[in-house]
């Protein structure tokens, strides 16, 4: 127990100093220690102090992995933390007696917020909402709303703005001081990349053409050079200081083929009906 405690404090230091090699080594050692005491998954017989220590180890591991931008590892830590957080959820409900566990050191909202942000940056909105649903339900029981928590509020707002299409708000959120902590900032670049692509996709459909200077503002790019670079990547045509978006070859040529396909299906359908009618009669 005591050497585990010292391991945790060492780990803390290592992560603070960004010595991730050391941290990784410490992490595997402390996880092994936890495993020896059978505390990687909390049971009713696990002593409370050990549960707290185990949670701290896993949380630090999660933070370390996110700082090393290892999404897979972070997800694994997040999953491992779930049983611990379930304990906390249970204790946090009204009508439950205060438990022996100490939740003051828990970084639950931060880890959960980071996980939400990770899901958002990966575009996994199904899982995002699945996690969120649980959080909302919990918050309802406590009589509040999820947005009371700054760490949760941030990804939730981002998602809402993304879905709505208010990309400028997303841009401002990622830039401003509203980012709850530096760990959240790690995702800003990914998110900006996402929204830039979204905007580009929308612009292709929405505008017939666009001056380069306006495009710079729209796409949140630094300079016109960057715009040209970006336009080349997307295959846009640049002419006279304007961007012309490639128009899909539609209208006449396609409609003719359309009719052919359509008549095929119509005939097929009609034959199908005839066959069915025959079986009925």
């Amino acid at each position, binding site marked *: 127990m005591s050497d585990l405690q010292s391991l945790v404090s060492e780990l803390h230091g290592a992560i603070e100093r960004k010595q991730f090699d050391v941290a990784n080594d410490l992490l595997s050692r402390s996880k092994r220690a936890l495993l020896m005491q059978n505390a990687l998954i909390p049971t009713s017989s696990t002593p409370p102090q050990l549960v707290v220590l185990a949670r701290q180890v896993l949380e630090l591991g999660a933070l370390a992995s996110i700082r090393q931008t290892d999404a897979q590892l972070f997800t694994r830590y997040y999953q491992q933390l779930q049983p611990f957080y379930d304990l906390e959820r249970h204790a946090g409900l009204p009508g439950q007696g205060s438990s022996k566990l100490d939740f003051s050191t828990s970084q639950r909202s931060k880890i959960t917020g980071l996980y939400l942000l990770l899901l958002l940056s990966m575009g996994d909105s*199904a899982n995002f909402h699945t996690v969120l*649903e649980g959080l909302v339900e*919990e918050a*309802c029981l406590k009589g509040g709303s999820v947005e009371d928590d700054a760490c949760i509020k941030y990804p939730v707002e981002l998602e809402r703005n993304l879905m709505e*299409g208010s990309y*400028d708000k997303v841009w401002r959120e990622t830039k401003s001081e509203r980012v709850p902590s530096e760990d959240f900032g790690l995702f800003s670049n990914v998110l900006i990349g996402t929204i830039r692509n979204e905007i580009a996709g929308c612009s292709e459909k929405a505008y017939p053409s666009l*001056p380069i200077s306006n495009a710079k503002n*729209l796409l949140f790019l630094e300079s016109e050079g960057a715009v040209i670079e970006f336009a080349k990547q997307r295959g846009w045509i640049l002419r006279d200081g304007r961007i012309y978006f490639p128009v899909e070859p539609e209208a006449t040529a396609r409609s003719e083929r359309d009719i052919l396909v359509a008549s095929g299906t119509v005939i097929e*359908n009609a034959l199908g009906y005839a066959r069915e009618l025959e079986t009925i009669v």
Partner: protein
Amino acid sequence: MPAERRSLRSNNKSDTSSSANGEKANSNSQSPGAKDKAPTTRAAANKAKSAPTKKDAKGASNGNMGDDDKSHTNGSKSTENGVNGSEDVEMGDTAVPPTKGSKSSGKDKEDDVTMEGAEDVETTEPEVDPTTKAIQDIKSNFTLLERAVAHFDPRFTLRVLRSISSMRKHLTPEVLAEVIVETYSASSSTASFLLEALGQTNAFENAPASSDMEVDSDKNPIAQETLAEVDAYLAILVQIYLFDQREIQKGVQFSTNLIERLRALNRRTLDSLTARAYFYYSLFFEQIAPLPPSPAAAVTTIRQPLLAALRTAVLRKDVDTQATVMTLLLRNYLSTSHISQADLLISHNPFPVAASNNQIARYLFYLGRIRAIQLQYTEAHSHLIGATRKSPASPVARGFYQASNKLLVVVELLMGDIPDRAVFRQPALERAMHPYLLLSQAVSVADLDGFLNIVNTYSETFRKDGTYTLILRLRQNVIKTGIRMMSLSYSRISLRDICLRLGLDSEESAEYIVAKAIRDGVIEATLDHEHGFMKSKEVGDIYATREPGEAFHERIRACLALHDESVKAMRFPMNQHRLELKSAQEARERERELAKEIQEGDMDDEDAGGDFDAI
């Protein structure tokens, strides 16, 4: 789509009113409706049969024919109620967990009414003691169970289960104890197991005092070897009794033991009974603290046994238990908002197609809920449509019907459709759906402020219904509808006006939102960034596209599928075709004979003719 659904339902309704027999409860889905037809009518006949015997015993000698008729209708009516009731109890309980108290009281009232109705008619006959009647009913069910085992026909068992709800009111420890005493010998372990749960451990000592005993004593040796089905049936009655008396702790204890016992048995005729036992088992656990929303809730402790039961049921091809346990597990997971687990369960376990209608409805409801949370609205929509259509039409199952309709409306809104006004006008839904009606009105007129107002006003209701998070997602739909309306009404509008009308924060946001709407295909328009306006494209004639044809095709397909389903759902008696063959054979023979005769006759004629000619 909703129109179609409604017409289906209303058809049902008119059927119910016009037909005197009680089979309608199930017929809103095609398959089980047809399946249940036979047992119900037969049950009615059975009841009618039993009623006159009762009367004979009492020596009532009024006009036989008329009375007989009356008791006939009476009997069939009460079975009808029974059918509805038994479906409902489950349905109601499943669908609306928080309002269980009020729900069950409503249901009780419903039962009251029907029971009273039945009794009113009966008062014309000499008074029947409800206790003896209950005992008689239970015993007559034993014969049904025996027949089920002998003929290996689950229909008899289902009929027994259906009669439970009409019996529910009359269950007392005395009734059950008496039945148990008469069924088992004093040394039977099952008997003591059941009696212990009832708190009637000394029933055997008390029993011989009653005079009924002697009448039945000669029967005892026959019944000595009781069937496992009878054991299970009595155990379920005990479970129900305990549940109705709110003796939850006792029920938990009893059910756990019962499940242990049932697990050891491997009899296909026991399946539907086992399924029911699991249902009450889980119901008991939902009632004990810590209550569900907490992740340490008592329900989590039964996941292991339920999963084991699921595995066993699948291995034994026990469809009833499999279906029931799966819905129970889903409900279990969702109650503690372990949505990903529920999703995993679904993806790894196919739901049995042959499951009973109610289980399918329930499964579809949960599936729809999960898919809605995961943003797969189209899928959620089709599942929820199925759930609402398959939900029992009887008034006591309203809880389920309402819950699935609420979810359906929200999902429809999320898909960008405006639900049909008539959905809200159904008498069963009108009051419960009122907040949702306001909500869809706000979405349809794209009134963002009004929408937020409604969400705030009714947030409690929405949270209770579990639709709150889904409704929060509707905000963007409101905006989209607004944009669509503006694009339709103006050929050109400045971004500034859009921003003002929608109550957005900035012109920039408006531009991005409109661009997104264009990309998502919500509107047909182009943006002009330099002048800051949106220009709508000419709307093409929809009838020039393939759209109407596709919609038409979709409907025809649905009708054909309906026809196929109904054919499949019809019950074909076994070996019936042989009978037909036989009669065909006979007919052919007869024909041949006829032909022969005719031939002979012809010969005669010819002969005669010949004679004539000769003459």
